[in-house]
């Protein structure tokens, strides 16, 4: 177990190092810099700016300087949000995205598992078909269609929730639900398929033959095994949801970190993109390790080595 952890963490650190390096060089290889604007800067002023934001010197010098700053926990100044450090931007926006993503994660799992189990139990009945139809629909309709429709009905017509913003629990409901829906549908399909397979196995037949109640068969004996594919999917899912969503955050005006992935690149905000990539990669690596550990609890046949 300990050897497993050390190996995975070392591997994770190496991955992180490579990801940061690639991000840095890609950002610096793009045409134009943070100060390329419609109004051309006098050369002296551009020189001052590049010096202040440590973007002068050769790319190799910049890379070495950046890596040494990152190692000391300094993610540097954002070149777009001029007076803010990347650390400060992340400190303000990451908790927002994590809240939104955390709630969406719970909704996705709760709705997905329930729908999936119901569909499997009622295999080939109306229940199955309706659940799977809803699931396919939620995967097929993109966020940027569902979200405006949700706003139109729940906010503008019925006044149940606010149209946008981030000031109270009420502001969380619509964006979290819209964010969760496609993932809930995916989880439902995973659960259904895996559950159908498990329900046909010998030990389930044995349990039923012994007279165990159907609900207990499904929830206690079958679900424990059937949930494995969902568990392995939930690692990347959590990393994905917790680091925010460009579309949902824009439509609902949620002050999260999601927009920086795209806008950071468009603005050539090298260090902000670097910071966001570091957070995302770290979460992804971390959740994959957690998933592996969860596996051993759920299925004793799996050993970590």
């Amino acid at each position, binding site marked *: 177990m300990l050897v497993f952890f050390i190996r995975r963490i070392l591997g994770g650190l190496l991955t992180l190092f490579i990801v940061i390096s690639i991000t840095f060089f890609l950002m610096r290889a793009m045409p134009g810099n943070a100060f390329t604007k419609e109004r051309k800067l006098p050369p*002296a002023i551009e020189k001052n700016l590049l010096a202040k934001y440590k973007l002068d010197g050769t790319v190799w010098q910049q890379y070495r300087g950046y890596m040494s700053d990152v190692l000391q926990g300094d993610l540097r100044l954002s070149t777009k949000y001029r*007076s803010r450090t990347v650390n400060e931007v992340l400190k303000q926006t990451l908790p927002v995205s994590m809240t939104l993503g955390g709630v969406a994660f719970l909704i996705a799992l709760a709705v997905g598992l329930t729908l999936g189990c119901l569909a499997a139990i009622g295999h080939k009945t109306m229940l199955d078909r309706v659940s799977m139809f809803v699931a396919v629909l939620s995967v097929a309709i993109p966020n940027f269609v569902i979200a405006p429709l949700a706003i139109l009905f729940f906010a503008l017509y019925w006044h149940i929730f606010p149209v*946008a913003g981030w000031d109270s629990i009420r502001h969380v409901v619509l964006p979290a639900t819209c964010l969760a829906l496609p993932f809930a549908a995916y989880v439902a399909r995973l659960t259904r398929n895996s559950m159908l397979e498990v329900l046909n196995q010998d030990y389930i037949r044995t349990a039923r033959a012994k007279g165990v109640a159907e609900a207990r068969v499904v929830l206690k004996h079958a679900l424990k095994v059937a949930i494995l594919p969902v568990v392995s999917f939930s690692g990347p899912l959590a990393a994905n949801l917790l680091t925010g969503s460009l579309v949902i955050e824009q439509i609902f005006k949620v002050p999260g970190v999601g927009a920086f992935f795209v806008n950071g690149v468009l603005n050539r905000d090298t260090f902000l993109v670097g910071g966001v990539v570091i957070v995302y990669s770290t979460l992804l690596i971390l959740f994959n390790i957690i998933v592996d550990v969860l596996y051993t609890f759920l299925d004793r046949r799996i050993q970590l080595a």
Partner: protein
Amino acid sequence: MMRLLHVSFLISICLLSGCDSKSQKADFVFLNGAEPESLDPAVITGQLEGRLVSSLFEGLTARDPTGSIVPGVAERWEISLDGRQYLFHLRSDARWSNGDPVTAYDFADSWKRTLLPQTAAEYAYQLYYIENAEAFNAGKLPDFNQVGVHALDDQRLEVRLTNPTPFFLDLCAFPTLMPVHMKTIQKYGEDEWIKPGHIVSNGPYTLEQWRINQRVRLLANPFYWDRANVGLNRIDALPTDNANTAFNLYSSGAADLTLDKNLIPAMLLDALRGRPDFHSSPFLGTYFYRFNVTRPPLNNPLVRQAIALAIDKKRIVEKVTRAGEPVADHFVPPGIHNYESPACLGHNPDEARELLRKAGYPGGKGFPTISLLYADQSIAKGVATEVQDMLHKELGITVQLAQQEWKVYLNSMSQLDYDIAASSWLGDYNDPNTFLDMFVTGGGNNRTGWSNARYDGLIQQAAKEVDVEKRKIILQEAEGLLCRDEAPIAPVYFYVGVQFYDPQKITGLVQNVLDEHPLKYIRKQN
């Protein structure tokens, strides 16, 4: 395991979310466009940042709701006969938000900070009109005493300019020239001083809250000298660059005012234009095409004129932009101080065909395929598609559309790697110079490769001319060269500023060419 996760997430909702339902509501909420890049007067360059900074700080002069210059921290001033020397008399009751008096030394120190190379102020060149300021900013002149700004005592500031600059009082109201509280900067450092809790400002408002992509909250400054005339107590500026979200917030009543044209959903423009809460008026900005004059056949002025004449601008503003934009036959927008543009190239397809024939391409025969470069997906693309069609129909010219990501596009333009490029320019101050001086030989914003000794000479001559009438004639000749005789550019239309607000409830906003709407004068009836 799952249950544990549930509980911990529920707890974290309240801990992490930053939802502050306890905080007070603002009296007035407006949609301001994207998240401000900064609130430091020396650092900002954009219009949306300017709105907030002009509410937090006040320069020697200020603007009233019509955009006209009124006394700010300076209650009066004297200008020497040669137009190069200004003596500002500061009002004695001007205070910082911590109660300190605002003095002439504050201005001299703030301008020095803006010009110091290590401050890396992008708009430092707004101060280049002051004697020796440019050399000091470039690090060529280490002694600030040689720069033309001196505090004579607490209340008197003397400024010497390189040339008579008729728009200098306009510049004094510009954010780059606003004073900052040096003691606060020394205490908290260059980047931390503008954060809520640290910042000390001298304008009608102070900064209560600033959360990235969430809100900027302003609170009336009790020490402001004209506090009695500040209407609103607490104002929220909401950042969003998504037009649909902005419109949803406005129509659900969560915001009182929308202050940015880009926040109006383009698809709804036709339906919204007739409403009583839709307000639009021209402002100092021009949409135009640049020609790369270093590439044949665009190196021939006849070809450039032909293309300019073939563009049906009226169709473009009616079919594509649709917010009431005036067509542009010249480059300097109408309504600018002390100036009227000369007549330039309008829409005349017959003359266009004739010019193209003279250039050696009758009916477009032998004319190579040229590319039209643009960046933005919506308006610029729509305009480009129309122009492509017009040039093909009227002149027989085949145009290929080329879209590039914003910074790649800017890079292509700077390196003259294009044939025709969609462009726009917004004026910095109310004077034709802000539109015309960019096309001098080698100017950083020229980006056409065009070089004309006569034009360069006229711009220089205008800079030295004190007489308003004579200066106007000089600049008119320059604009004639630019938009008619040489045509390295083809103007298409002038921008309009668009606001959304209910005129029954919100007052104190006046349509003006600068699209400046100082928050100080806004009132709200409940």
